[in-house]
């Protein structure tokens, strides 16, 4: 590998560098500001972090879009990488908007570490989402996971939070091990670790020997490792407990960031690099998609805790997204990419409201407590309503067009049965999404009318409302935005 990096290489990772710089700035600022009042510290740190994320997003948007990969094929620099970068940074910005009022309200300790770790996780997601090489893919995965292990346990006084951290750490380590083993096997078959080279190598190997157990095992292990990160059934066991136990902003970061980055990686590996040899992996992802859709939706039905319900439903969404990958067409990839953006925004709305309601001890997010929210917190209720309706996939909101994209691609690719299962499961999801959505506007049950005093009212409203507006925008302005996703999908496979 050539180690003489050019200016173009560095320019390609400018967003990553800006984020990394912001992590350092935030840590330094935390050190210098320690004498100030905690409220001011949180505001300044959140502001610095947000500036870093926005700057990274703008630099990525205005910078040159390369046609291939930087650093000798380690980092992708194409329209797809740009699209994923922007999706992740939008999610990251919303997470920061949710975090600041949350930290202040529940009085969480160590805000400096929180923001630094959140930004580091975001950086890891960025690396994972734009990886063009198994090594960068692994690096990104580890970076985001390490930061999230700590973040999941951040509400230290809370028993569930520590449980979440341990659980996530143990299970995730195993999954990462599987992934690494899969990569090693694929290296054994092909002699490469670059995604494009592995793809080409596997094609040659398949032609010569007709596949072989080692190749199948490698592909399967890689699929399993990534499936863990997107919480596909049967690799989902950790999700409900971790999502429920972690502080709400961290849950949001896991739900939208990890999923978007991991799906970007899945698209690059399976659709992009291994697309031509789809027969090897399509059955695996097909089975995962079916299990995930059915499992996620059915398990969400009996939930009484809203946060836990959203955790299960996020599993279900991974199932819909996998349909788009299984279709193995550029329409399917475009659907996945658009779905990810819509998913990021509408989940930011839903988890943002959870963050605004959650108490320091993790209570306050029971499903029954949502009844009558509109009378107490009209804007919060409206934002949640829009997000939930979009999560069902009711038009004309963003979620509908995401589903339209992946289901449409499945029908076009001759997998109408997957689309059929998808819509049946969407109807099931109508039960658990629409019931709370309408309950918001019903009169409150007498016991739950006492709303806790809330100092950071404005701050906690901001992120959900912005997210809800984005959800609507993703529906009404679907034309140009979808064209962007389609253009990004176009370059994923060359």
């Amino acid at each position: 590998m050539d180690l003489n990096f050019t200016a173009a290489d560095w320019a390609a990772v400018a967003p990553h560098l800006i984020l990394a710089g912001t992590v350092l700035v935030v840590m330094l600022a935390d050190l210098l500001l320690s004498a100030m009042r905690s409220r001011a510290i949180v505001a300044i740190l959140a502001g610095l972090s947000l500036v870093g994320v926005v700057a990274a997003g703008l630099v990525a948007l205005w910078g040159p879009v390369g046609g291939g990969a930087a650093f000798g094929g380690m980092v992708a620099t194409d329209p797809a990488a740009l699209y994923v970068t922007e999706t992740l940074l939008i999610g990251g910005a919303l997470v920061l908007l949710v975090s600041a009022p949350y930290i202040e309200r529940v009085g969480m300790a160590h805000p400096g570490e929180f923001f630094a770790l959140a930004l580091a996780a975001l950086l890891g997601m960025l690396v994972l989402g734009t990886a063009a090489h198994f090594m960068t893919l692994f690096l990104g995965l580890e970076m985001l996971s390490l930061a999230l292990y700590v973040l999941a346990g951040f509400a230290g006084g809370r028993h569930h939070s520590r449980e979440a951290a341990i659980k996530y750490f143990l299970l995730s380590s195993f999954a990462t091990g599987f992934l690494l083993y899969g990569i090693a096997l694929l290296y054994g078959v092909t002699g490469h670790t670059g995604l494009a080279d592995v793809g080409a190598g596997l094609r040659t190997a398949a032609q010569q020997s007709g596949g072989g157990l080692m190749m199948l095992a490698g592909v399967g292990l890689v699929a399993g490792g990534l499936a863990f990160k997107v919480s596909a059934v049967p690799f989902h066991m950790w999700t409900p407990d971790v999502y429920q136990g972690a502080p709400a902003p961290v849950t949001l970061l896991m739900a939208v960031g990890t999923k978007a980055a991991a799906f970007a990686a899945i698209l690059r590996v399976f659709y992009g690099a291994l697309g031509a040899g789809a027969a090897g992996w399509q059955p695996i992802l097909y089975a995962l998609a079916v299990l995930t859709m059915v499992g996620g939706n059915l398990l969400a039905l009996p939930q009484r805790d809203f946060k836990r319900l959203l955790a299960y439903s996020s599993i279900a969404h991974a199932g819909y997204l996998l349909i788009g990958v299984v279709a193995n067409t550029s329409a399917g990839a475009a659907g996945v990419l658009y779905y990810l953006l819509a998913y990021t925004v509408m989940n930011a709305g839903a988890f943002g409201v959870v963050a605004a309601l959650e108490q320091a001890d993790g209570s306050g997010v029971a499903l029954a407590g949502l009844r009558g929210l509109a009378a107490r917190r009209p804007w919060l209720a409206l934002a949640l309503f829009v997000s939930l309706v979009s999560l069902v996939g009711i038009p004309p909101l963003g979620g509908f067009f995401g589903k339209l994209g992946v289901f449409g691609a499945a029908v076009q690719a001759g997998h109408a049965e997957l689309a059929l299962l998808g819509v049946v499961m969407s109807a099931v999801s109508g039960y658990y999404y629409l019931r709370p959505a309408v309950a918001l506007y019903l009169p409150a049950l007498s016991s739950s009318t006492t709303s806790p005093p809330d100092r950071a009212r404005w701050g906690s409203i901001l992120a959900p409302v912005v997210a809800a507006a984005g959800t609507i925008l993703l529906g009404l302005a679907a034309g140009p935005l979808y064209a962007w996703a389609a253009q990004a999908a176009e370059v994923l496979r060359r």
Partner: protein
Amino acid sequence: MVETIFGIPALGYLSLVLWLPLIGAVGLALVRERAARGVALVVALAESVLAALLLLGPGAVGGSMDWLPAFGLRYALQTDALALPFVLLAAGLLVVAVAAPPSWRAALGERNPGPVRGYYAALLALTTGMLGVFLAGSVFLFYIFWELMLLPAYYLLARFARVDGPRIALRFVLYTLAGGLLMLVGLLGMGAAADAYGAGFNPDALLGSLGGQIDGDTQFWLFAAILAGVAVKIPLVPFHSWQPESYAEAPAPVAVILAGVMAKTAIYVLIRFGVLVFPAGALAWQPVVATLAVIGIVYGALAALAAREFPRVVAYVSLSHMGFLALGVAAGTQQALAGAVLQAVNHGVIIAGLFLLAAMLERRASGARSLAAYGGWAARWPRLATVFLLVALGALGLPGLSGFSGEFLILLGTYRVLPWAVVGALVGVILAAWYAVRFYQATMHGPETPAAGARADLTRAEALLLAPLLAAIVIIGLAPGLITGSLFAWLGTLRLP
């Protein structure tokens, strides 16, 4: 198709017709509770004027612009001889529903009757959803409005249904959502079919001449998907279980909209995006749809005979009547289709009258709904009795009133292709006379029940509310050609059996 109406772009004018109720609904957030009904009424009246003006425009107008080219989704609105009667029905019944007293939104004596603004906003938003289905000129656009109807309807039922609102509403929504999503697969299949015939992923291509050309097997499945969506909403019999309690427990004005207009969106969709697009598919499914329709006619009539509470009787009457509409669409001949559209309007008007009368009777009987609590009121309230008799006769299809003309056309058109179904439907006609006489006698004749006391005969406000409906029943009964004239001309341009 003409692109302008009254000198302005048709897309703009139709957009105004479409969005005005929703704009009104959003606007209600800015006014006080007391003013809500007045504002809603102004919006509804303006809406009906805008819709009525379409009668003066060219017969078929429309316009379109791109929205999401990747899926052939256009923002395309149009109206023609098929859509116009439905649009007028929606606008007209909106006025009736909004004009009904706001206190009707809750049962008599309900302690927490719910917000007036939310109630009217939901009624208005629901109307935009329904109008969108009638006006949509693009497949996915129609689907968007089809699903949009769900949310306001869900809210209206969950918040305002007399008893057990959240459960009834959830059942209604899940049934409808499941049907709608199955239909979505069909619409995606339409895109794929168009793609297979070289038109790109663009389901709208099938609305043109391509529709009839695709192979029979594909048509069979695509029609089945459309059918799945509408079967719940019409409703056809095995999918009807949400209907009686939803209609009966909803406030009367909401039932007017649900039974009078929302059910018609399904009939409209079955014609516009089903029978006309997939003639071979429709033919293959004809026996099934016709059988279910006849079962619905007879079952609804029998259930109406057996039901004890008057609103529930009316709900079953609606079920029976909707069977006639479905039968007409299934037959698919010119006469049957024209009859189905005509009867869609008639049924909307008559069922609205029955639900409103049910509310008036309920309020006179201190909230009692059971027919057993009614009786002998003709002598005390002659004007109410006369109006009630007129509507009841319309419901049983007396010649000279509107209900007859539509049913007759449907049966005439159906007889040519499905004579056995007509025999079954005629049983329903006989039963209709029976149930109409039964509920009229139970309320107006016999010994007077003590519950009836202080209330006056038909008040001026009540008379004003029912007047447009009565006028429609009589006028359409005498001159059905007002609706069928342009319809036959339009159907004549299509190749129908």
